[in-house]
């Protein structure tokens, strides 16, 4: 079960998508969008941790995140 006790800022997500897409959102679409965002984060962190581990870093470094970002974004291209 999800560890996030506090709800994510729904209004913020809605506003972000609204601004980027220039379209309004249906009432609960933002939940799904956030769900997708969580999947994205999961994938991103997974790739980043793999990469940082390969590079022998103790923690995930910003560079490994950066390197992985494009790949992950492409994976999430609809």
């Amino acid at each position, binding site marked *: *079960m*999800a560890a*996030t*006790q506090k*709800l*994510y*800022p729904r209004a*913020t*997500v809605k*506003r*972000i*998508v*609204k*601004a*980027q*897409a*220039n*379209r*309004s*959102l*249906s*009432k*609960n*679409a933002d*939940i*799904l*969008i956030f*769900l*997708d*965002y*969580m*999947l*994205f*984060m*999961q994938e*991103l*962190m*997974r790739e*980043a*941790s793999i*990469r940082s581990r390969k590079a*022998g*870093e103790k*923690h*995930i*470094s*910003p*560079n*490994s*995140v*950066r*390197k992985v*970002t*494009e790949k*992950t*974004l492409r*994976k*999430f*291209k*609809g």
Partner: protein
Amino acid sequence: MSSTPNSRARRSARDSEVSEASTPARDTTLTKLQRLPIHTRYPSTPSQLAASATPRSSSRYTPGNRGAAPSTPYGLRAMQRRAANTPGRDRRKSGRGQRETVFDVLRNLSKALAPNSQPIRSSPQPPPEPEPESEIDEIDELDNEPAPERPRLSLPLDEVEEDNDEGSPEIRPPRMSLALEDDDLTHTSVEYPRRATFDRDRGRLSTMSYGARLSENFGDAMGLESGSEDGDATGMILDAGGQDETLISQGAFDRGGDTEDLGRFNFDFNFPSPNAPADDLDQDGPLNDDEGFELPPVDLGLGPGPESDYSEDGDATGGFGLELNLPARVSMSESPGLVGGGLRDEDTVIQGSKQKKISRHGIPVPTMPAGVIRKLATRFARARSGPKAKISKNTLAAIEQASSWYFEQASGDLAAYSKHAGRKTIDEADVTALMRRQRHLSNTMTVFSLAQKHLPKELLQDMRLAMPPR
């Protein structure tokens, strides 16, 4: 083949005995050959047959002939067959047969070409003569180089910026790197005035500024000090081109350990750096200014933190990572004095991205709160690499950048889907379509099972209400 007269004349000298004596006693030669093991190695060519006809000729002939005619058995066999097939054997014996062996042909060629080859030598010779001149030119070229390179510097900068925009979160930082490059350029450009002073004051400063003098001095004081400079500078300075040398020397000029790092960076950046700022600096110009420029970035940027970044970059990807990191440091330390056009732009852009981004449609986009991102990131990182997973500030910034890109991309896709469906609002169906296309949903994996996995119960409930399960 074409050189029949020559070959005949030459051959006649050697083989006169052979050709003259050849005709009478083939049979005897064959028998002798069979007896002698040595001869069997060299099956008889017509010339050999002829030569061996008389006893004395054969005795003389074999030792001398080893070198000349019978070189390869295959060639000799071919010669024999030809001799057998052609009606006029006698003629062939005279030496044409020998001629036709590959080596003979080559020999003839070489002999024929020997006199002609001299003019050929002459053709390569002219280039060597100009070469000494070209050496002198190289020195001049060193002087000339800085000017052409400036354009190069400007071009790579644009490319770097573009690349960053496309792929990596910190596009702007690379621009920041430009600032460093600007410094470098300024050094080079500023150095022109320096040269004159240096050359005059050379005794004091020589240890400090080898590199700068190298390229520049040749131009200015070629005749006077060029020789001494060559010895000192080349020995001291690195292998790299004039520019690199100048940069390094500058670094040495400014400081010891820290500047060394700068020097490395400078190597990467030299070529891409823009010209325009350099020109401005030139006008401003004095030596002191240069030092001032370099120092602030060194102090602020090259602390322990950036070094760690540097090492990481080296591990992951050689040069590219460096470029990204440097700009960031520079941004930290930005010195007002540096001001190039590029720098100002970068600053504004960075601030904009940090504070409020404006979407494609001109609507200000709020950023995802860092706390939420951090929570998500640590959660997934923990799931991945254990409870100790820690996310540094810089990493968080990279993740924020990535997530903002994600939202931009996702909302663009969602807008496209809803538009295609003829709706004005983004619907749940659009999001599910997106997730399906992302391969997150399939026949076995529904939105609800995914949501159950990731979302808290309240959200799940809302979602259920919104979309009746199909």
